[in-house]
């Protein structure tokens, strides 16, 4: 049986469709999860997609964090549920304190939509085990509040524990601390990043197909050893 991967739709989610397409392209079954539903419908992993949940009013991800489905996700993370937050999903994970740090306004104070290179730093996580350490990939960054911020102690700890998922290669597009583009929990299961691997699964409609291994990695991680 193929893995079932849930993709949550919050009011204002935008890249949920693309995330489902990426899940299907990776060979798994995408399952639509609704923000208001306090059930995960037995999915094996969850993707929190990009977009502007609740309009990104107040702070990006601040209101979505309290959605009923988030309560379920927070509970299941404790028992090892792999969760990937992309862009707005990453912001939600930080707001929910499932990942350390916060995402703040881009230094240039503008929304930035650009094809960029990132370097995969950790290949032991559930979402990046299909990459090679140090591999550089081309993906899309599109966000207004994508600058990763955390206090010095947290940054040092992330570094020491190998929790930096990926970094911007080349110039830092948004002022993120330590060029950090994504981080992962100490368990290696909950990951978040600002760039969009789901937009990079087909060179026809994205800058590359380099993002697909995010979605195949989790299948490998889920497969019984």
């Amino acid at each position: 049986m193929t893995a079932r991967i849930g993709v949550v739709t919050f009011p204002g989610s935008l890249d949920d469709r693309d995330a489902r397409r990426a899940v299907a392209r990776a060979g798994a079954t995408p399952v639509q999860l609704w923000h208001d539903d306090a059930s995960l419908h037995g999915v094996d992993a969850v993707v929190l997609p990009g977009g502007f949940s609740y309009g990104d009013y107040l702070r990006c991800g601040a209101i979505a964090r309290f959605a009923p489905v988030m309560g379920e996700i927070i509970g299941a993370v404790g028992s090892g549920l792999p969760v990937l937050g992309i862009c707005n999903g990453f912001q939600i994970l930080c707001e929910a304190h499932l990942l350390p740090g916060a995402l703040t306004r881009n230094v240039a104070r503008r929304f930035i939509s650009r094809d960029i290179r990132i370097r995969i730093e950790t290949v032991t996580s559930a979402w990046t085990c299909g990459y090679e350490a140090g591999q550089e990939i081309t993906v899309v960054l599109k966000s207004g509040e994508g600058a990763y911020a955390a206090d010095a102690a947290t940054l040092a700890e992330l570094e020491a524990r190998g929790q930096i998922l990926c970094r911007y290669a080349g110039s830092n597009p948004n002022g993120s601390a330590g060029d950090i583009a994504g981080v992962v929990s100490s368990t290696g299961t909950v990951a978040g990043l600002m760039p969009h691997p789901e937009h990079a699964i087909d060179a026809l409609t994205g800058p590359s197909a380099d993002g697909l291994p995010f979605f195949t990695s989790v299948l490998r991680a889920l497969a019984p050893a």
Partner: protein
Amino acid sequence: MPSFVVNVMLKPEIHDPQGDAIASACHRLGFPQVASVRQGKRFVIEVSEPASEQRIAELAAELLANPVIEEFSVHPA
């Protein structure tokens, strides 16, 4: 209706590009005495029944401010 003000500011150690940009704009506009600008948020909250400042502070801590990067204060309006 009674109301409260909640002020939310970025913690001093968090970079505020918006504030910096405003400070430089001040200089260009002929206000050289501006040394720094920090931009935060101000919420004016009307409550339909009497609510304690304590309760509003709970709301601020839970929703209106992100403790990782922000600090807040509550005042009756």
